[in-house]
């Protein structure tokens, strides 16, 4: 096949262990009797943005939720296969789930700040970690809010309720909350779908800045967004990983017919 342009993207199917943040092997997942994920195997590269696209209900959110075992919250959820982070299978019984979730942060579709002050929202995770000293908390809160580009807007009202913030600010607050724990991996479950275009742009810029610090996995319905922000893209359909490659290739020269149909909007 003719290479239209040169790029420095890695081949996701030939990643070395050192380049891999998350290594998924033969992951199958059921909710009660419903088979949601079918034999997913993929390696997500470190310090990159990987996006998951696909129809609603195709298992994207379930897949990223299995990276921090948030699926455990649902009764009747069973899974087989491995998800390796740092060479450890997080699905093993020995895994400390709380500790895993401090290393793998997550931001949800709807901004979900706790009904506490802005300050308390950001320290929520740190307090759970047993950080008690005021100084350490203050520093961490300031750093996290600066990382989430929210500091300048809220520095004068840190102790007011988080609900006075706008939707976009709330979502950045949720980012800050996750970043305060300095996660290695950040999972974003449609983080901009409830926000206006300008705020979306803001958050996309934020993601680009955060890339150097952590691996980002984003679920999105917005194809342009996936193409814009992500280095690699995986297309899921009905619980199966159809195609997974760097974003340029996937959006310009998809291998599979299904992928092409989806990205050109010929589905359904």
């Amino acid at each position, binding site marked *: 096949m003719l290479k239209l342009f040169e790029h420095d993207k890695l081949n996701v199917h030939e990643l070395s262990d050192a380049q891999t943040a998350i290594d998924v092997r033969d992951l199958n997942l059921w909710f009660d009797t419903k088979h949601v994920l079918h034999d997913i195997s993929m390696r997500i590269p470190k310090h990159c943005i990987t996006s998951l696209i696909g129809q609603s209900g195709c298992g994207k959110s379930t897949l990223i939720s299995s990276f921090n075992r948030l699926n455990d919250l649902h009764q009747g959820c069973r899974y087989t296969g491995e998800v390796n982070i740092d060479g450890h299978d997080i699905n093993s019984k020995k895994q400390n789930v709380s500790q895993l979730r401090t290393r793998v942060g997550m931001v*949800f579709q709807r901004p979900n700040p*706790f009904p506490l002050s802005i300050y308390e929202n950001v320290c929520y995770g740190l307090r*759970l970690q047993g950080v008690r000293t005021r100084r350490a908390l203050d520093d961490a809160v300031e750093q996290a809010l600066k990382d989430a580009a929210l500091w300048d807007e809220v520095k004068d009202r840190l102790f007011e309720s988080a609900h006075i913030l706008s939707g976009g600010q709330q979502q950045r607050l949720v980012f800050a909350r996750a970043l305060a724990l300095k996660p290695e991996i950040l999972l974003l479950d449609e983080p901009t779908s409830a926000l206006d275009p300008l705020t979306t742009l803001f958050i996309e810029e934020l993601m680009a800045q955060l890339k150097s610090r952590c691996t980002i996995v984003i679920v999105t319905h917005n194809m342009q967004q996936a193409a814009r922000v992500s280095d690699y893209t995986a297309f899921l359909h009905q619980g199966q990983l159809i195609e997974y490659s760097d974003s340029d290739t996937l959006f310009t020269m998809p291998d599979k017919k299904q992928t092409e149909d989806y990205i050109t909007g010929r589905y359904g």
Partner: protein
Amino acid sequence: MVEFLRNMTTAAQRQSYAISLSAFLCSMLLLVMISILMLIVVRGAAYFWPEPIEQLVYTSAESGEQKQVYAQTSLHQTAPHKVWQLQYSDARFPFGNKALVNADVLKSRRNAADAASVRLHDGRQLFARPLTVTMPQSHPFSAERFAKAQQHELALSQQIEQIRVQELAAIHIKLAEYDRRNVEKEAPAREKLRAQFAHWHKKILALEEERNAYTLQVAFANQQRYTLPLADIASLEFVSRLSWMEKWGVAFDNIAVFLTESPKQANTAGGVFPALFGTVLMVFLMTIIVTPFGVLAAVYLSEYAPDNGFTAAIRISVSNMAGVPSIVYGVFGLGFFVYTLGGNLDALFFTEQLPAPTFGTPGVFWAALTMAILTLPVVIVATEEGLQRVPDGLKAGSYALGATKAETIMRTILPIASPGIMTGVILAIARAAGEVAPLMLVGAVKFAPNLPVDGEFPYLHLERQFMHLGVLIYDGAFHSQTDAKGAPMMFAACLLLLAVVFVLNIVAVILRTRLRKRYLVG
């Protein structure tokens, strides 16, 4: 009929009939509620409001003679002819009697400005014209003289009380000690004490005699005289002379007495302080017991229990428990808490006092425990509703930050559910404050000599019996029908009970609103 309506009316008409009917029923309900409230407020407030005294002349229905009395009147019935109810004093019934008088036999009726309402310390009341104050010389009555005589009399009473408490009590204690040590009857120490006792006793008798010389002579409307010892008189008020503002003053005094004093005359006069205190204490203890139990049970049911048939069965049983008649809980409390639990406690820890029971008898703690069980379902159901209203997104957010289930519940779910918990506690408080039947089995009594809280170690006496406003009302309403003052006092107690429940509710609602504002979600 239904067929007829359907044929004769259009859909719009039928709808308007339905609306009218429901509006009518709703307004009827409102009317009933307002009437209940009005009745209790009016009759209850009448207990405090000083009614003017009138001088009446009428022909007695029994003897046919003309009678002249000082009385407080109220309209008893209007149709078919007017009948007045009198509450009067005369030489035969100095402390009040009731009579019904037809308007047509009433000869004259005028305001008696010179007649006073004299209230005694034991709660009895008499209407008469004060004539002379004896202190110990007789003087014509005047307010200043009366006040002065009362002061002197009070000083004497205090002296007597002081001797009783300080001197005589000490002698009694010493004598009791000698009895315990089997000191001989004729021992010199005893003789000495006996002599001391005689000395103080003589002094008391002398003082009492001096005090008894202070009297107030009054005259009834028919000029018959009556003499009252000043020591018995609590207050004297020329009710008919009072201005409107002064009446308010008297009413407030009455309210203060009602709220701070113990009942007198078998719960028909005096105050209701012990009952008010008992009610609030019992409700307070119950809240302390029921809240942690209810909240923990609801947290388990809602957050931890597996979603299966057994949990569903538990949930249904809990809801059904709210409908169990309260007397059943009373019997359970008596059988299990009082006899079984209390009896075993006595056998284990209070053996030296047996056979006199300590905890094996109805008491305020068992009452609070019984009421806690009775209100537990309410708290559980309301808390569970509050817990279920916590958005899943927030829970997921908490878990995603590395919180364990317990941490999520403590830091996120419970604060957000706290308005729901408050709702449950409000309902529990309202129910417990108003309940009567089970309380009579497990600790509430008509008259308790001591409060459950006093200055004696351990200060809070959980095993003591207590008085309760609901029980007081029940007792007063049934056993004091004949007494003139009894029924109005029950209305006043009802009013107070309503006020207590209202205040507790308002406090809880304010608390809940603040929590809601604080933990507003979304």
